[in-house]
């Protein structure tokens, strides 16, 4: 059981939890994630480690409420507990001095980009960050990202803040303007990562993405998370979650993410109906 020590709503439907999980905090590295189960009947679902603190033994999770699992998690308050957290999982980001790196975060993926940007900065890189969201109020972790960025760009789909368009558009403009990058790191929705991959493919800059397929055990035993990378099937939970963006079959990833769409919808309706009847 893992106690929530801090809870904040950092944007509409995006919540931040600080959870006491000292063993995980001790071992966490950038790019890694945990898998959790909110309660006895809950499903196992992954969240990236947005931060951790070895001293006070906490880990930070940032999530968008989309379906039953994330809604249930969002309902938990300070001092309540999460039943199970397993981690740290996945291979850590390869952090070294590449030279100039561009870190791209989209939506709730900005929180996942943050520890990577920080580590890359601390490793001596020049960090150029691009973060984006649908609209201004959904932008998260701006100050945190800014703190570890040498250059910092913002985009929103509707133009309410920064460049009007996608993060991949900003990246494209920077490259066209002659920016040279030694590494591009992108995390966010699959469509956004695909767009980034397409922008960097022609100039052949090494581009790393952190994939987010459906996971069940997250320890390599089920294959739910399989993705095709360079024509080979890989298990994202243990072989990844980071892969070379130019080798990833994003179409397959996106289709597999939607495998249970009708079940998820039905589950959410049941859960909401249940909640209403409890409140009544």
């Amino acid at each position: 059981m893992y106690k929530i020590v801090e809870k904040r709503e950092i944007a509409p439907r995006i919540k931040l939890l600080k959870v006491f999980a000292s063993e995980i905090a001790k071992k966490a590295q950038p790019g890694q994630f945990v898998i959790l189960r909110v309660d006895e009947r809950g499903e196992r679902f992954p969240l990236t480690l947005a931060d951790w603190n070895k001293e006070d033994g906490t880990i930070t999770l940032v999530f968008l409420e989309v379906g039953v699992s994330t809604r249930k998690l969002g309902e938990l308050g300070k001092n309540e507990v999460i039943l199970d957290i397993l981690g740290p999982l996945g291979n850590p980001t390869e952090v070294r001095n590449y030279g100039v790196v561009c870190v791209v975060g989209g939506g709730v993926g900005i929180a996942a980009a943050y520890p990577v940007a920080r580590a890359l900065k601390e490793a001596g890189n020049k960090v150029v960050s691009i973060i984006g969201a649908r609209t201004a109020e959904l932008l998260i972790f701006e100050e945190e990202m800014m703190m570890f960025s040498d250059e910092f760009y913002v985009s929103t789909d509707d133009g309410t803040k920064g460049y009007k368009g996608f993060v991949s558009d900003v990246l494209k403009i920077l490259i066209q303007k002659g920016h040279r990058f030694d590494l591009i790191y992108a995390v966010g929705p699959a469509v956004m990562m695909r767009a980034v991959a397409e922008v960097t493919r022609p100039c052949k800059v090494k581009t790393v993405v952190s994939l987010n397929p459906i996971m069940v055990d997250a320890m390599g035993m089920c294959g739910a998370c399989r993705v095709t990378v360079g024509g080979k099937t890989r298990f994202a939970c243990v072989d990844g979650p980071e892969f070379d963006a130019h080798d990833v079959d994003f179409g397959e990833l996106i289709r597999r993410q939607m495998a249970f769409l009708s079940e998820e919808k039905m589950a959410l309706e049941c859960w909401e109906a249940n909640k209403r009847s409890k409140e009544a």
Partner: protein
Amino acid sequence: MSKWDRLKAVPMPKQPIHIRIRNFDEVALGYNEEQALMEAERCLQCANPQCVLGCPVEIDIPGFIKLLRDGNFREAILKIKEKNNLPAICGRVCPQEDQCQKNCLLSKRGDPVQIGRLERFLADWEREHGVEIPEKLPSTGKRIAVIGAGPAGLTAAGDLAKLGHEIVIFESLHEPGGVLTYGIPEFRLPKRIVQAEINYIEKLGVVIKTDTLIGRLYTIPELLRDEDFDAVFIGTGAGPPIFMGIRGENLSGIYSANEFLIRVNLMRSYLFPKWDTPIKVGDKVAVIGAGNVAMDASRCALRLGAKEAHVVYRRSRAEMPARKEEVENAEEEGVIFDFLTLPIAYYGDEKGWVKRMECVKMQLSEPDESGRRRPAPIKGSNFFMDIDTSIVAIGRRPNPLIQQTTPGLKVAEDGTIIVDEKMRTSIDGVYAGGDIVTGEATVISAMGAGKKAAKSIHEYLTKKI
């Protein structure tokens, strides 16, 4: 009740077929006292019992059957427990037909004594009448880390705890039990039976830490160096599912058997949406492979509402590796067997959901030197099967994380951990057993390995003082 006949086994009561395919409750209901006594009466009490030779842990079979026959159930179960820590489980899932019962003298002329059913009867009787917690030896002050809470780890932990050692089991999943919990379905091995065995082991003072992935949270060198453990037992079992590597295999609706069974058993998705983990089977399901895992998967698929479940197997009936009893159960429930059939490609709809499976027919060669008949495709025999789901049950590899994170640990080419006859690995104080050493095997062999390792670890730790 039918007339007693020495050559005929007392039949096992089962849930009626039309009812059981609508639920996940246990299919085989177990003998009552009268039936158990009748079956025990059939044993010849051989002076030179062949059955014992067939038992991987050498239970004194005529011994416990005699005690049972005399109505001394408590003594009878204790006789079994001298050698077998998990009789309620083994009585249900051991392949007795290939082990003790295969050797039974009676099987030459009729049905063998139903040793497994008697074992199950006694274990269930004990659970209902109260399990005695044995005296533990005084504390030795030694600490042992057991990695993995499957049958190998649970057994090693139980035996070592009785000897006075302090045991912590580290299990990565949120529930202990290994395959017994996440793989074998409720209708074959109810969770409460596994839970009872786990409770017993906890009563011996064993601490089970779930949600702990060794290799990531702690490595073995860290356990020995920083966490004050004197020895380690590795019982991490088999994990990564093998896929066929054919076209379209990553379409949605194609599960590994492990994913399918983890969803159904560990995550209780047969109770979706009351429980949160979804599962989708559709009308027509193909299960690839013909082992126990394939039987479990096909029978689960029917219970989840599939109209047709096919077991698709590239060899013939005679080569099926599944337990006979489970094949019979599957057939009774309506599973269709497509023998000599090999899938070669999948095709999906615009949403990426599998819709069709292309197969070829196979023929078996004459037996080769090893006596095995090899399947080979028949040219031009390709055909299509419309399906909504495919479940790939063709095997699993050893879990690799410990091997990858333990410098100096000797590992075979197939990824299994190498041990000597005392279950010692190449690292001093580190032992291993179960599927992680043998590759996919059986509950009883994993349990036997756990026992053997416990004995060696005890020797090692007491000598070291």
